């Protein structure tokens, strides 16, 4: 491990990244792209996978402190709950950046994922402001929470009834499917406008499976993330909308900021950048694919 914290410019840096979990597709994509950019530049990137566990994430941060990296990047886990790791990093003079984890003492850079409010807004518009929605939320995840806040904001004051269920991770697809299956059985076709909103694509995919199995085409399903299967479902008209962050752009943003962050060190003022999170509908899909050659919906 090389300690080059005092050198500036385009020197070779050493970066430690704490992933979240493989199920969090967006941040995984950002991290993978960032890693590629950095390694092309000759930096040393080490990643750790805490499998969603806060404690393991803290452990990974402390290991990176021992490794004496120049920058630690954490993701998704609320930064406030990483206090132990942040303190260790601060004591060692290593700045910490976060992807979608929010700010906290010790975070010098926060890449915010916007809540993507366009999705619920589109849903409300599609339903004409009335009907019934099955909302599949996931409270432990910050991005999901923010999206759900946006969702609640959008439905407020409309004639839409919300049935909320909590998705399980792991097993997100199954729980989406199970909840949707029974919900669909309870709400037969033609009763009122029906939609299923999920705070990420996996449970939405599960809902699609349920709808297909029940032979239902009257339900509009919404998700977030723009995973390949979701884009495919969008293309086939099974998904009404998803939202996809510009992961390449976000990775570039983070990459560009890295030397500055290392230069400024731990004392620096916290910066925040927002990753745009535009809605993708079947109409805008082609445009999105053209703009993001990496995205895959075949």
């Amino acid at each position, binding site marked *: 491990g090389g300690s080059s914290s005092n050198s500036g410019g385009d020197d070779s840096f050493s970066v430690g990244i704490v992933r979240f979990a493989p199920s969090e597709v967006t941040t995984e994509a950002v991290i993978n792209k960032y890693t590629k950019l950095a390694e092309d530049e000759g930096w040393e990137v080490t990643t750790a996978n805490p499998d969603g566990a806060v404690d393991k994430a803290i452990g990974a941060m402390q290991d990176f402190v021992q490794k004496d990296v120049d920058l630690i990047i954490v993701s998704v886990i609320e930064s406030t709950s990483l206090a132990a790791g942040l303190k260790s990093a601060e004591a060692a003079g290593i700045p910490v950046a976060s992807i979608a984890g929010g700010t906290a003492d010790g975070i010098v850079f926060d890449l915010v994922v916007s809540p993507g409010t366009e999705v619920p807004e589109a849903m409300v518009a599609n339903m004409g402001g009335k009907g019934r929605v099955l909302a599949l939320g996931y409270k432990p995840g910050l991005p999901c929470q923010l999206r759900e806040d946006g969702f609640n904001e959008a439905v407020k004051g409309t004639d839409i009834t919300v049935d909320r269920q909590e998705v399980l991770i*792991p097993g997100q697809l199954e729980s989406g499917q199970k909840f949707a299956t029974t919900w669909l059985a309870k709400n037969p076709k033609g009763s009122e406008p029906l939609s299923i909103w999920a705070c990420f694509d996996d449970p939405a995919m599960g809902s699609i499976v349920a709808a297909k199995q*029940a032979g239902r085409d009257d339900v509009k399903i919404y998700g977030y993330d723009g995973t390949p299967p979701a884009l495919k479902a969008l293309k086939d008209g099974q998904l009404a909308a998803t939202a996809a962050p510009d992961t390449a752009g976000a990775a570039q943003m983070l990459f560009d900021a890295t030397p500055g962050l290392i230069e400024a060190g731990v004392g620096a003022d916290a910066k925040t950048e927002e990753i745009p999170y535009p809605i993708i509908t079947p109409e805008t899909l082609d445009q999105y694919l053209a703009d993001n050659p990496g995205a895959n919906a075949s």
Partner: protein
Amino acid sequence: MTSLMENEPTAEVAKSNAHFFEWFGRYGALLVLAALITVTSILAPSTFPTVDNAINILNQSALSAIIAMGLTFVLVTGEFDLSIGNTASLAGVSACALMVSADLSIPMALVAILLVGAVVGLVNGFVVTYMNVSALVATLGVGTIVIGVNYMISDGAPVALGDPDAFLEITFGRFLGIPYPVYIMLAIAALLWWLLNRTVLGQSMQAVGGNRVAAELSGIRVDRVRVIAFVVCSMCAAVTGFLLASRTGSAAVSAGDTYLLSAFAASFFGSAVLRDGQFHILGTLVGVITVSVGFNSIALIGLETYWQYFFQGLLLILGVGVGTLARRRAAA
């Protein structure tokens, strides 16, 4: 009814009591299922007791049932397998990866993942028999390594098919109004039941599970039997993983992991169905279906999600506990 005879009554009463408890011990777990169906039918009369919903429940049970029945094989042999969830994930990931990158056809991919399953089973069997590591440790270790392989193949990201339609058909296709997975489940159940109850292999497995030393001294090739059990189990897990991937035409590294605990729960519940603590295929099937019915009921009645945990936990404890308690009463 009062009997005025002096020398009989206590024994008589005790006896009929014993009979009742014996009956209860045998059918207690089935009673739980019956009660569940009755109650939900009353509470949700228009949505629960319908043919559609029955098919729906069976369909939801299919994947869990396949993996749980495979696990039952290992349990019958007196072993454990903690790697099934990871094997299911691996099967999905490798099926998709093979179809995407090696352009395999669906049947070829199925063959390939059956092989993958068999290999995992062989490794489990090898570590358990040759290295003499307890099955719990061995399969925990092998399972962990399988996760690593998953990551290596997929780099952590979901693997999606470009044109999944044919693949999706496996999950969504229907014959006589019943989805294919239900047929697959029933076919595998029949095959495994036959293997276990109508072949020397199956009888040997039960003997090995009952007393390994006695089985060995009876000439049964214990190690071979154990390895076969692991292989069958892993192959069932692989089938589950394959079907799981065919739901969405894509596979994630940890998609199958949740099946581990549910398969154990179903098998143990099933061991209390009609038997006193022996694992068997029919029981496992009933166990899986009971859990599905329960989940379905909770959702249809519209209880909070956390009720599903209470329900699942209680189901397991009561389904098994009532039986053993009743049997103890019957024996006393």
